[in-house]
């Protein structure tokens, strides 16, 4: 079964037109249209998944992750339009660079190959996976959780129809419908047939893919993200940045978990955070380490609460509206903390002293470093980098937003005009 899947995917990859062919733009348009056409059937299948998951005891929060609504359709159609608008730039021919007096070198985009996406229970990932890698010529195998099996079945029909209407091989998208982990293991052991692995989901799943397979992985290591607040910072701005980095999407990978603040301004920063929370009635739990002075004398309505920061909070993602505050003795201690506990996703510095910001930027190591702003700015569309399928914390190939441009490799094209290597080599000193 695994062999048949891989043979079909590789055959589709081989039969597909080159990256940049107009068929891929047609595919984006067809996918958007057919999503709308089939949306009632997709919602019906999704309702069955949600009902079954409820009967199996999934919590309301998790059921919400499975559930699709009309708002999801709007966002997915917007994504197809965005991808369509980005295709031309990503696949544009390279103008070329002269090499000596004998030729020109240029790069032409090529697909990464067969991409295997493993994820859990967010059905929108099925559409993202069927769209972004395929739009630049890759074949994809999509393995979602069995909690969304029926939804994925309906979305598989949408992708298949869109491919056929666009004139692309039908097996460029394969939605796996076998929940058996044996198949997952078998695919992870096929670096000969799978070129890239993109796991999205729980830390266990991502760790497993990284350790159990020799297939190159594009993955996020999660976001244990920090904001360093230097004593020169505008503390009111720092408070606003901290809350904006946390509260709108507390479970997102680019959210802030910990403020590392110079000890001499730690108490003032906490006061500023509480004032900012009270202004907009934003619910937030602030965990303070023993070196941070506790706020006193505040009365009236409090949307915030103060808690103790524990050792086990260092290096964790709270995944809710909780943020830690730890006092440090300057930049060196903040950077040491980040090196020990950070996940290399997003780190930030708040300082009026430009020298401190420059030093932080030079020494901190993460996929993105934000200076005097919200950590949630680390996002492909927001940064003007384009639509993203994930944010990578890996060090090779792609780091940060995984955009269409990250889902292609390239060939060097050498316009040699009849040049032979031997005379060139002989002429070198």
């Amino acid at each position, binding site marked *: 079964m695994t062999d048949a899947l891989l043979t079909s995917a590789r055959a589709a990859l081989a039969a597909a037109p080159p990256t940049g062919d107009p068929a891929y733009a047609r595919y984006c348009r067809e996918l958007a249209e057919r999503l709308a056409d089939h949306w009632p059937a997709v919602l019906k299948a999704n309702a069955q998944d949600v009902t079954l998951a409820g009967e*199996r*005891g*999934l*919590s309301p*929060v*998790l059921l919400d*992750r499975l559930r699709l609504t009309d708002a999801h359709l709007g966002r997915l159609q917007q994504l197809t339009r965005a991808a369509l608008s980005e295709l031309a730039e990503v696949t544009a021919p390279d103008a070329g660079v002269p090499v000596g007096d004998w030729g020109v070198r240029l790069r032409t985009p090529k697909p990464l190959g067969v991409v295997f996406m493993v994820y*859990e*229970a967010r059905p929108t990932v099925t559409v993202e996976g069927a769209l972004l890698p395929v739009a630049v010529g890759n074949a994809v195998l999509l393995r979602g*959780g*069995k*909690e969304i099996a029926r939804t994925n079945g309906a979305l598989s029909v949408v992708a298949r129809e869109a491919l056929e209407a666009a004139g692309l091989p039908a097996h460029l998208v394969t939605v796996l419908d076998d*929940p*058996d*982990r044996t198949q*997952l*293991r078998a695919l992870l052991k096929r670096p000969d047939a799978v070129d890239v692995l993109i796991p999205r*989901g*729980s*830390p*266990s*799943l*991502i*760790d*497993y893919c990284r350790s*159990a397979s020799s297939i190159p992985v594009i993955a996020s290591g*999660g976001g*244990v993200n920090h904001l360093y607040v230097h004593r020169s910072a505008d503390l009111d701005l720092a408070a606003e940045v901290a809350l904006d980095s946390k509260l709108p999407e507390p479970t997102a990978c680019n959210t802030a978990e910990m403020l590392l603040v110079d000890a001499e301004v730690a108490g003032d920063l906490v006061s500023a955070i509480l004032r900012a929370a009270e202004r907009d009635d934003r619910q937030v739990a602030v965990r303070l380490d023993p070196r941070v002075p506790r706020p006193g004398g505040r009365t009236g309505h409090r949307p915030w609460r103060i808690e103790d920061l524990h050792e*086990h909070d*260092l*290096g*964790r*993602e709270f*995944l809710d509206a909780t943020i830690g505050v730890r006092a440090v003795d300057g930049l060196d201690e903040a950077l040491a903390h980040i090196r020990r*506990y950070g996940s290399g996703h997003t780190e930030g510095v708040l300082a009026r002293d430009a020298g401190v910001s420059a030093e932080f930027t030079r020494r901190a190591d993460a996929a993105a470093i934000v200076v005097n702003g919200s950590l949630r700015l680390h996002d492909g569309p927001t940064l003007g980098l384009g639509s993203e399928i994930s944010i990578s914390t890996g060090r090779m190939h792609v780091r940060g937003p995984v955009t269409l441009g990250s889902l292609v490799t390239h060939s060097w094209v050498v316009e040699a005009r009849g040049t032979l290597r031997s005379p060139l080599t002989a002429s070198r000193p």
Partner: protein
Amino acid sequence: MITQLDRAAVTESVKRVVIAESRLSLRPADIEDHEPLNGEILRVNSLGFVGMLVRLEDELDIVLPDDLFVGRSFHTVHDLIEIVLSAAQASR
């Protein structure tokens, strides 16, 4: 029959997996058996079960049923250890 060594191995593996799943920088020894799976320290939810199952299967060299966690009531690390132990026993 599960030996004491097996219990120790399962306990270690389960704790390692729930630590990873909760995105914590702790050692298995830092987690008590009675620690809630979804509480102050650990944050484990059922959507992470695929990753947890494959990791446990590989670490313990056992095969666990797909529906291992379905319909079970488990709230603490100890509950999870007992479920995996019983499944491991059945798989041998």
